[in-house]
């Protein structure tokens, strides 16, 4: 039985960059873009036969129709669009913009043809040539449409990044040590204070180091060596409490210790392995922390034995811890990290894969 928990895509809506074209704000932005384009066209044309303001009024009216038409069409098709890939959706939207422009150009031409005489003052407001007029419109709308889509895409990505960073900070806060561990350690120290003062002293030092690492700037990337050191300190404290029941095997000789990792990557996994595995087994067991380098990728895994019947509510806690590490890995190595959990009847394994970026 295997349950890979790849980085979950965000809910469809937030990953889709196109704004809601039905919203008044977006319609306003589109109309504004249209009016700016109209102004540019008028400024660029320099037609001496026509008054500047009349020409601009014509262009503005024409582009207003295109803007409103485009917004209307995109409003109607947004839902099915959101199901497509970003590349396809963008291509389709661009095609729709060109089609709307062509349609409105055609209408403008027909209108001029049937209601006005060429050469009259009113006739000047309508296009004279048919084909070239349509072609020019299509090309301009294609270019402006592409620029507008790019603008929407960039602002969306920027907003998403800000959100993800904020979320990742919160997750890092949540990744901090369980209160359960703190109070149990205090109890162990209280017991050792009299029976073995030297051990008690070491335990206090270890606990201090552990909390210092835990309370440091959560976003920081640290060398793997430091992260493993934190995990080992954690192991020492837990050994005092669990005695013979806890054994940890470190198979990390082949990984570069200078590789950078988000802080609190291994320690929470070891904590989970003990909390959900070792601690719940009367005879305890061995946690295996293994690492290997594979080309320019690193693989780290934490494996632990589990009891036959894990408590459902506790599994939930584990899921949250995994989701949170996934998020932080994703932020550190966008699109290049993976996390996989495998559960058999007796074992639970979490495997992290991410690029090996070494300290200079």
């Amino acid at each position: 039985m295997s349950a890979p928990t790849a980085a979950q895509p965000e809910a469809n809506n937030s990953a889709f960059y196109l704004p809601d074209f039905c919203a008044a704000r977006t319609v306003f932005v589109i109309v504004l873009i249209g009016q700016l384009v109209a102004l540019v066209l008028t400024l660029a044309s320099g037609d001496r036969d026509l008054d500047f303001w009349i020409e601009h009024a014509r262009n503005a009216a024409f582009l207003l129709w295109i803007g409103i038409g485009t917004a209307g069409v995109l409003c109607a098709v947004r839902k099915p669009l959101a199901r497509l890939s970003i590349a396809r959706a963008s291509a389709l939207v661009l095609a729709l913009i060109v089609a709307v422009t062509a349609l409105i150009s055609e209408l403008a031409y027909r209108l001029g043809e049937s209601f006005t005489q060429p050469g009259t003052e009113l006739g000047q407001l309508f296009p004279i040539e048919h084909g070239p007029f349509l072609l020019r419109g299509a090309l301009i709308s294609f270019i402006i449409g592409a620029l507008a889509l790019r603008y929407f895409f960039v602002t969306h990505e920027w907003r998403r990044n800000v959100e993800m960073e904020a979320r990742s900070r919160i997750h890092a806060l949540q990744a901090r040590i369980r209160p359960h561990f703190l109070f149990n350690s205090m109890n162990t120290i209280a017991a050792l204070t009299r029976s073995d003062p030297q051990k008690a002293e070491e335990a206090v030092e270890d606990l201090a180091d552990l909390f210092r690492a835990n309370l440091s700037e959560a976003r920081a990337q640290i060398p793997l060596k430091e992260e493993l050191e934190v995990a080992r300190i954690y192991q020492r404290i837990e050994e005092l409490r669990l005695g013979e029941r806890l054994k940890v095997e470190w198979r990390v000789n082949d990984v570069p210790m200078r590789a950078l990792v988000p802080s609190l990557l291994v320690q929470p996994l070891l904590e989970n392995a003990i909390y959900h595995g070792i601690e719940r087994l009367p005879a305890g067991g061995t946690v295996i922390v293994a690492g290997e380098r594979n080309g320019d990728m690193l693989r780290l895994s934490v494996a632990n034995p589990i009891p036959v019947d894990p408590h459902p509510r506790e599994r939930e806690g584990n899921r949250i811890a995994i989701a949170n590490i996934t998020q932080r890995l994703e932020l550190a190595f966008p699109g290049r990290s993976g996390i996989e959990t495998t559960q058999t009847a007796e074992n639970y394994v979490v495997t992290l894969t991410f690029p090996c970026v070494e300290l200079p």
Partner: protein
Amino acid sequence: MSAALKILIIDDEPPARDRLKRLVEELDECQFVGEGGTGQEALKLADELKPDVILLDIRMPGMDGIEAARHLADFEAPPAVIFTTAYDQYALDAFETQAVGYLLKPVRREKLERALAAATRPTRAQMAKLAKMSPAGARRTHIAVRTREELKLLPVDEIRAFIADQKYVTIRHPAGEHLIEESLRSLEDEFNPDFVRIHRSALVALRHIEAVERVADGGYAVRLRGSVESLTVSRRLGGELLRRIRARD
């Protein structure tokens, strides 16, 4: 002078036990009688040593403290129970509402004294409610049966079937058959995904079904691991049984 209060200490962590033991030994009129590291040991030792009070850790491997207290409540003369915990938010809420004695680790001497003075025996209703609120749920890992000589704890995983018969329910277990005073209905509710009702009077462990056989009249019968005789499946429940077996594979 009245007899000293006999105290049993149960915790899976040796340093935690040592500390409680020392605290208890320092108190007047208290006598440390034994220690253990699992819920099963709590029950065995309570049965043998007849302590007045058990200091019982909640989070332990195997059978946890809440389940142990639930079995204790079924004792004829249960010892008083004081739960100990380092940190369990849900448990604290539960203890407050059920007015059960508890201590937070590291335990303070004065609080221990006060708790010992106020310790009460667990009642069935109280413990059943506590169990419902615990993360393990109301589901027991063991069923306690009392034979003439001793208290036996049957792991639920090993039980083959519960067979109802008039007033009692018989537990079929590789080590023999035992009678308990519980209803088949409540057992079915408690052990639901792992046990399936095959008859008005039979609840069997899905994991121990070795074969489902066709019988002469077109119905089914179930043969359980390590058993030669078959249990009849009632016509009404045959479909459900097959569906559950398939869902397991």
